[in-house]
C-alpha cells in the first residue's frame, strides 16, 4: 500500500515515440475503469450525502448535514459502530495471540505441522456467506451444536442467535473461526524468515525459551504483527457477508455492523442520500485509520 515512492529512480531514459505509443495504449483502460467504478462513485457519495434522494431523476432535495445529524443520535447506528469496535477488540486481544501461539506451534517440527497449517487456513478460503450459514446451523437451538450442548446438560433449547444480549458473540465466534488461520499463516511466514542462528546463539548464552521469544522472536516479528493488526482492523470495519446469513442484523437490530446497517437501511430502502452518508462515514474511518496507522506504526516497514 505504498503511495508516492521516492527511493526508486529509473535511469534517465528519454521517452521515445515508441514509449508514448505504449503509454497511450497501456494506461487509459485501467485509468478509465478505475475512475468510472471507484473514484467517481466515492466522490458522488460525498455529494449525494447532502441530499434526500430515492435514486430517481436527479438529487434535488438538498438537506445539508441532516443525514449525518441523523446518524449521530441513532441508536441502531451507534450499536453498529460498537459492534465494529467489538470485532476489532476481539481480533486484537484474542485472535492475534491465538494466531501467534498456534504459529509458534506449527512453525516448528511438530508431527503433521503442514497438515495443521492447512486445516487452520481452510476456513479462510470459504466464502463468508457459506461460513455464516454453516454457523447459523451450528447455533440453531433446535438442531446444531447448541442443541447438543443444551441436551447434554438437560436444559431447554437455547437460541443464541435470537438472544438480543448475546447474539453478537456468535458473529465474533465465526470471525475468529474464519480468520485466525490467515493471521497464523502470516506469522508462520514471519517466523520462517527469522535467522535460526540468532536463537541458537541466545540459547548458547543461556537464554530461557521465554527470553528467546520475548527478546528475539517477538521483536523480529514486529513488522508482521503490525501488518496483521492492520488487516484485522480493516477487515473488521468492512464486515458484512457473515452478518446477513447468520443474523440478518437481528434480533432487534443488535448485530449490525456499519456495512450491514448501510445495506439494510440505505440500499434495501433505496435511500441513496442517506446510504451515501453512511458510506462517507465508513470511508472517513477507513482512511483516517489507514493513514494514521501507517504513520504511527508502519514507517519502517
Amino acid at each position, binding site marked *: 500500500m505504498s503511495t508516492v515512492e521516492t527511493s526508486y529512480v529509473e535511469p534517465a531514459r528519454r521517452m521515445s515515440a515508441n514509449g508514448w505509443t505504449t503509454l497511450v495504449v497501456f494506461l487509459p483502460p485501467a485509468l478509465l475503469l478505475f475512475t468510472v467504478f471507484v473514484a467517481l462513485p466515492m466522490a458522488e457519495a460525498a455529494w449525494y450525502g447532502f441530499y434526500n434522494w430515492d435514486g430517481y431523476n436527479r438529487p434535488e432535495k438538498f438537506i445539508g448535514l441532516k443525514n449525518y445529524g441523523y446518524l449521530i443520535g441513532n441508536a441502531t447506528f451507534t450499536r453498529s459502530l460498537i459492534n465494529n469496535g467489538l470485532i476489532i477488540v476481539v481480533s486484537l486481544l484474542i485472535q492475534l495471540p491465538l494466531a501467534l501461539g498456534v504459529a509458534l506451534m*506449527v512453525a516448528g517440527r*511438530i508431527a503433521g505441522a503442514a497438515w*495443521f497449517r492447512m486445516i487452520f487456513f481452510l476456513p479462510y478460503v470459504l466464502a463468508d456467506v457459506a461460513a455464516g450459514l454453516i454457523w447459523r446451523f451450528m447455533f440453531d437451538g433446535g438442531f446444531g451444536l447448541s442443541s447438543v450442548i443444551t441436551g447434554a446438560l438437560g436444559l431447554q433449547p437455547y437460541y443464541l442467535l435470537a438472544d438480543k444480549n448475546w447474539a453478537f458473540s456468535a458473529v465474533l465466534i465465526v470471525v475468529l473461526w474464519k480468520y485466525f488461520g490467515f493471521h497464523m499463516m502470516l506469522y508462520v511466514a514471519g517466523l520462517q524468515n527469522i535467522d535460526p542462528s540468532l536463537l541458537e546463539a541466545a540459547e548458547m548464552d543461556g537464554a530461557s525459551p521465554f527470553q528467546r521469544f520475548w527478546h528475539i522472536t517477538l521483536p523480529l516479528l514486529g513488522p508482521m504483527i503490525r501488518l496483521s493488526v492492520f488487516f484485522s482492523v480493516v477487515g473488521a470495519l468492512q464486515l458484512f457477508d457473515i452478518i446477513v446469513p447468520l443474523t440478518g442484523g437481528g434480533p432487534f437490530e443488535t448485530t449490525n455492523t456499519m456495512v450491514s446497517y448501510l445495506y439494510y437501511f440505505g440500499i434495501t430502502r433505496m435511500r*441513496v442520500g442517506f446510504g451515501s452518508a453512511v458510506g462517507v462515514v*465508513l470511508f472517513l474511518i477507513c482512511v483516517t485509520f489507514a493513514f494514521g496507522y501507517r504513520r504511527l506504526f508502519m514507517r519502517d516497514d
Partner: protein
Amino acid sequence: MTEAAYPITETTTAAHEPAGRRPRGFGSIAIFAALIVLAGVVLIPILATALNGFKELGDLQANPLGLPHVWVWKNYWDVLTGYRYWQVLGNSLLIALLTVALTLALSSMAAFAFAHLRFFGDRYLFSYLQLGLLFPVATAILPLFIKIRDLGLLDSYWGVILPQVAFSLAMAILLLRTAFRQLPSELLDAAMMDGCGYFRYFFYVTLPLSGPILSTVAVISFVNSWNGYLLPLVVLNSESRYPWTLGLMAYQGQYMTSWQLVLAFITLTILPAILMFLMAQRYIVAGLTAGAVKA
C-alpha cells in the same frame, strides 16, 4: 514491504524449517494434543455440514453431530441432478474468469507503464490509482449502483465484473509494478539496443518472466470474485444470473426449515473451493498471504 521475490512461497512448503529445535517429550505431546483439539474445533462445523446433508430431518434433529443412521443420498442427488446448482456455479465461474482475465490484462499493462515509462505526473497518477486500496466497495456501493444502472448494466454479468476489476486494480498494479521493476534492467537496455520496442518487450520478456506474480494476482482476484457477495447482491435481480453465493442464500430462503437440504447445498457449493484449495494449496496460500504481505 517489498522483499525480494517470494518470502512466503518456499517457506510455507517447509523448505527450510525455522528457528528452534524439535520439541521433545512431554512438551511435544502437549502441543500435539492442543493442535488436535483446535483442528477438531475448526473442522467440526464443516464435517457436520457435510454429514448432515446425508440425514433425514428427524435424524438430524436427534443427532446433529454424529454419523447418519441411514445414509440418505437423495438430498445430494437432487441438488446434483437439478439445473440450479450447475447454473449458479457456472455463473460464478464465468464472472470470476472474466474478472481475472480483465484484471490481469489491464493491471499488467498499467503496471508496465508505471514501471518503465517516465512521464509528467506519473507519480500522481500512480497515487491516484492506489486510493483504491484505502476503502472497500461497500463505502461507495449506492453511487456505484446508480452508476451501473445509468450505464444500463444492471442485472448483467458485466455490471458485476467491471466494478470487481476496477476495485482489484489498485492492489494488482502495486504488486505487478514492483515485480516488473525487479527484473534486471540490463534486459530492457539490451532489448532497446537491439531495436525491440516496448510492446514486444512487454509480451516477450516481461510477461513470460513474471509467471509467479501474475498467478498471485490471479489467485487474489479469482478468490475475491468467487466469494463475492455484496456487489452481485446489489447488481443482479434474475436468479438465472446469480453466482453461487446468492444462489445459496436464495436456496436457504426457500428451504429454510429443511436444514438437511440446505446443508447438502452448502456442502456442494463450497466443494469446488475446498477441492481447489487441497490441490493447489501452495499457490493459494502463497497468493493470498503474499499479496497481503507485499502490498
